[in-house]
């Protein structure tokens, strides 16, 4: 399965929302990294990752999130992870990343 990325600006929240649909894995994460990095570079807002249709993420995908977090913190903004499924919540718990990111289920 491949990865589709939807992104839009939400005025109410003053945040960019990225919605990965499918799988962020070793094959698709380079593209995910490019999109996330571009959004962080070009904007001065928080970034919400809407994970309602993210079926799977591996360590390379988590690595992209961590690297995005480092970049966005330099601008005093944040990454918020929303609507994650239990299988992905489990990975954030295992890796301790649940304490690093703002995670809303």
């Amino acid at each position: 399965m491949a990865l589709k990325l939807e992104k839009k600006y939400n005025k109410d929240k003053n945040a960019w929302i990225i919605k990965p649909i499918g799988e962020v894995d070793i094959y698709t994460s380079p593209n995910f990294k490019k999109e996330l990095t571009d959004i962080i570079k070009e904007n001065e807002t928080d970034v919400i990752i809407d994970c309602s249709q993210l079926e799977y993420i591996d360590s390379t995908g988590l690595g992209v999130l961590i690297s995005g977090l480092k970049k966005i913190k330099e601008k005093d903004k944040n990454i918020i992870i929303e609507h994650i499924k239990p299988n992905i919540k489990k990975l954030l718990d295992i890796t301790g990343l649940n304490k690093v990111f703002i995670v809303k289920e």
Partner: protein
Amino acid sequence: MDKKDSLKISIPKKAEYVSIARLTASSVGSKMGFNIEEIDDIKVAIAEACINLIQTSPKENNDNYEIEFNIYKDKLIIIVKDKKGTFTNEEIQKDDLKNQESKLGLFIIDALMDDVEFINYKDIGREIRMTKRIEVVRDGDAV
């Protein structure tokens, strides 16, 4: 317990084929009678083992790597192996790993599998060997 069956796949060391390892793992796991969460654990762990092996493999070694599924009545032993190369301590010790992603991968494998070993064989390569036990022996849709 005696080994019942063994399945092997040999795949190119490329990102796009890792999904085939996941798919095969999921199919073998379901045949053995693991439950849905356990099957997911196996899929996730095998993918991390493949990623580890692909990313620590020197560029010039573009032979296929192999995954062996050893099926027992009460457990699945998965061996992800490369016929060349050796793991360095750098690559397999979570605590002093510099590379953030690899560290995550090792954490994940350790948490999801019952037993994990990184093995170097003198001159004949290296392997990651992972065991998942079936807590309750159930009937799968096959095997």
